[in-house]
């Protein structure tokens, strides 16, 4: 049994324009110590999929179906009270915006000890010394002094390290990192990714890494799920995915990488993402796809096994860049 099992997850939001389907029939698993990348462009549903696990979506407007099981325990129907014991303890999150994700009115020390005191029931003193250890763990120099500082006194990279320290404080089983390096300088990015790798190696934390950056995926992830318009279109181990991409959208993403640029110009994927308000029975990518044929418009291609550890949803798969 996997540590985390998401089965047939569908998430929509009530809006003034009607029900917007952000995620459709996603199934995935995550093993202990595994780093799984969820990739795709903005709005493809990768963040919504991940945030469904700790149930951090707006409760009033979210329409969710399917199953999310952590260690065999169903989370989607767990009472709020019990869910609060899961959040920050078993499942924790590092958000995209280090500049705004920390509370400007509280010291770094308070924000770390708060979660320790909540879940580990540590004394003030014990929580403080544990917090200093955590700051050391995520590579913050002079941790004792940083404890007394406020977020605005730290750089973006330092703040993201503080966020990670908060997230790993209670040794979570699953860590969700939502574009953790997107807002950071490239030089800082590598350091933050090292922190994640180190945590996985030392604590065996399973990590869901949400990113649109295939460079990051290649760097750190074991397995990747490529999402498009709310659905998984390809799923494989990272080595297999990069060696042998099956879905034309994955190929398009890879061609859009700066390293793949031809004559200094990045390749782009033509066209627009379809509206999440409608869901015709066709391949969602067909309008933008150079390989699209009549069958792509006749029925939605199912996610099928194309090789060992490799699923893709395409009638005309394969082909390098």
């Amino acid at each position: 049994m996997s540590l985390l099992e998401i089965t047939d997850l569908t998430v929509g939001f009530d809006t003034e324009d009607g029900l917007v389907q952000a995620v459709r029939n996603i199934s995935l698993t995550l093993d202990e110590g595994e780093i799984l990348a969820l990739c795709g462009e903005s709005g493809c549903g990768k963040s919504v999929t991940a945030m469904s696990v700790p149930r951090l979506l707006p409760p009033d407007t979210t329409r969710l179906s399917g199953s999310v099981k952590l260690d065999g325990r169903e989370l989607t129907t767990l009472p709020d009270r019990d869910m609060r014991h899961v959040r920050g303890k078993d499942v924790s999150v590092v958000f995209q915006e280090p500049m705004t994700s920390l509370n400007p009115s509280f010291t770094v020390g308070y924000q770390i000890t708060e979660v320790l005191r909540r879940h580990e029931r540590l004394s003030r003193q014990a929580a403080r010394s544990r917090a200093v250890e955590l700051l050391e763990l995520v590579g913050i120099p002079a941790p004792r002094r940083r404890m007394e500082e406020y977020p605005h006194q730290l750089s973006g990279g330092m703040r993201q390290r503080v966020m990670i320290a908060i997230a790993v404080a209670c040794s979570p089983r699953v860590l969700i990192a939502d574009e953790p390096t997107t807002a950071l300088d490239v030089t800082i990015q590598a350091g933050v990714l090292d922190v994640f790798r180190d945590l996985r190696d030392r604590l065996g934390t399973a990590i869901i890494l949400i990113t649109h950056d295939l460079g990051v995926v290649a760097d750190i992830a074991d397995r990747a799920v490529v999402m498009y318009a709310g659905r998984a279109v390809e799923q494989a181990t990272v080595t297999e995915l990069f060696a042998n991409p099956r879905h034309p959208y994955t190929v398009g993403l890879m061609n859009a990488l700066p390293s793949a640029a031809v004559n200094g110009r990045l390749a782009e994927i033509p066209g627009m993402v379809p509206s999440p308000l409608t869901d015709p029975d066709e391949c969602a990518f067909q309008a933008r796809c150079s390989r699209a044929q009549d069958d792509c418009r006749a029925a939605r291609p199912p996610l099928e096994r194309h090789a060992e550890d490799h699923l893709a949803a395409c009638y005309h798969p394969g082909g390098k860049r």
Partner: protein
Amino acid sequence: MLWFILRRCGSALIVLFLASILIFLGIRALPGDPATVMAGEEASPAVVAAIRHEFGLDKPLPAQYLDYVRQTLTGNLGRSTQDQLPVIDIIAERLPVTLELSMLAMLIAIVVGVGAGIAAAVRRGRLADYVATGFGLAGLSVPHFWLGLLGILLFAVTWRVLPASGYVPFTQDPAANLQRMILPALVLGTGFAAILMRQTRSAMLGALSADYVRTARSKGLSEAKVVGAHALRNSMTTVVTVLGLQLGALISGAVVTEQIFVIPGFGKLTVDAVLTRNYPVIQAVVLITVIGYVLVNLLVDIAYAYLNPRIRLAGGSRD
């Protein structure tokens, strides 16, 4: 933090100095001669001149100003032109009454306004929100005098649960004092509560959708902690600002409220002094009001620094 407070105190002193000049000049720019008022309409010019001389009103303006500053600093605010009592004694008698009224009103406003604002923000778009915003709008729109009269009519005349007017010093009989003060304080606090409610609501709505609140939720904190600590702390800056700004409205509201409930406070003193062109009293009243404003703003600034580390630690940022 200490340096910050000292700097703020310095600028407060400058404001007070400028204000004293304005007060002094402003009152003399008003039409009407206090000596004539004091002497009565039938008095001979000689009597008027004698009165003018006695109060130093015949000296040149700069000399009058220096007299004024010297006396003010020694606690001598002059004598009332009306009844010859020392102004400082009159103020000492009236000010506590209004302070009590204002403090009660402010307390009511903070408890009701901030509480309702938080409730409205947390329950946005639900019944509690509509009720709070509805009452907020009503509270803002209803003038004090009308609300005061309505209060008297209901509580004193129809239901006979509270006295209609009058004042008993707190030191003499606390229960009777509160019984007479509660209705005026409610009337005075209503508009204030409405403003606080609206400001708290919008500040809390902003804070509740902030990223750091999502972080707080992701830590598994209880909703009480998320709202009461993480969101509220960041909304308090707005609330404190409004609190400071609205003090003026509270004082002018006190004038009306004290008239309606016949409370011998600062507001009533002000109105009476203006009607009789009682220069020394008007000067003292305005001066005390200015000092009150400056003090409150000083407190607001210090509260800001306490609530917002970015102000307290200005210059210490490494960004």
